[in-house]
């Protein structure tokens, strides 16, 4: 739902409308969850590889993905507008000619995924790390996207 494919131009007007509509749908779902007493967001089927979790706190969005066996240099991240593009290639090195496989479940291949964040972000303040095969990208919210505390003044 939050994913977007690479086709089309980000500058086209209808894209924002569509994003807003998706945002609205998502918020409706979260509202329904909250009303039914289900905490947080529901588990969704991943739209593309890798599966992604997004969380937020007061200042940042956090995008996480499981990328076991990958090195930092094999992952490419790009932030444009509200979107984060994660591309890369998972390589599984050959174990030699004379090995006999019993099971081969781990897969190698290329991937490319773009996720749209629910609010505006500061593209200059992105921090990414890969620890134990787990990618965490922390993206600062732009000043406009942060929730503001308003003090009520006594007259």
């Amino acid at each position: 739902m939050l994913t977007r494919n690479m086709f089309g131009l980000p500058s086209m007007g209808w894209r924002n409308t569509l994003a807003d509509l998706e945002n609205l749908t998502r918020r409706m779902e979260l509202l329904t969850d909250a009303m039914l007493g289900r905490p947080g967001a529901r588990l969704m089927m991943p739209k593309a590889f890798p599966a992604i979790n997004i969380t937020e706190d007061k200042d940042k969005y956090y995008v996480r993905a499981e990328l076991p066996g990958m090195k930092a240099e094999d992952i490419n991240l790009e932030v444009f507008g509200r979107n984060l593009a994660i591309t890369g290639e998972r390589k599984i090195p050959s174990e030699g000619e004379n090995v006999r496989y019993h099971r081969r479940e781990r897969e190698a291949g290329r991937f490319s995924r773009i996720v749209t964040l629910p609010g505006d972000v500061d593209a200059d303040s992105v921090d990414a790390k890969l620890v134990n095969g787990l990618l965490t990208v922390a993206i600062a919210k732009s000043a406009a996207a942060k929730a503001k505390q308003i003090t009520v003044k006594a007259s």
Partner: protein
Amino acid sequence: MTESKELQAKAKHEVATAGEQTRPGPVFTPEVDIFETDEELTLLADMPGVTADDVAIDLNDGVLTLSGDVKPLEGPGETDVLVEFETGRYHRQFALSDAIDQDKIDAKLEDGVLRLTLPKARKAVSRQIAVKAG
């Protein structure tokens, strides 16, 4: 293989472990590669998020058990926006047909991938016995 393929989205494989779970939370089956040479059996398991301290390997009566714990990823004060995967324990068992030299088992965990090397035990029958002339 020159042209690499496109990786497809898939959900993590959750297992229903009746009776053996002592803690709440989902349990997942790690994806594995298993291959052998004449000397050893090697197992590679994708266990993202697991640290070396949290992985347990047990070989008992020819049954190899792998398990690993993943600590919650989210920091305090984070709320979910989109959830496509959950984290929890990894658990998987294998029956080994060959006798394994238990003392020489080697386990390495790198970038969330466990590499387990299980050297095969030398079979007594293969020993050559020289007969000396009396």
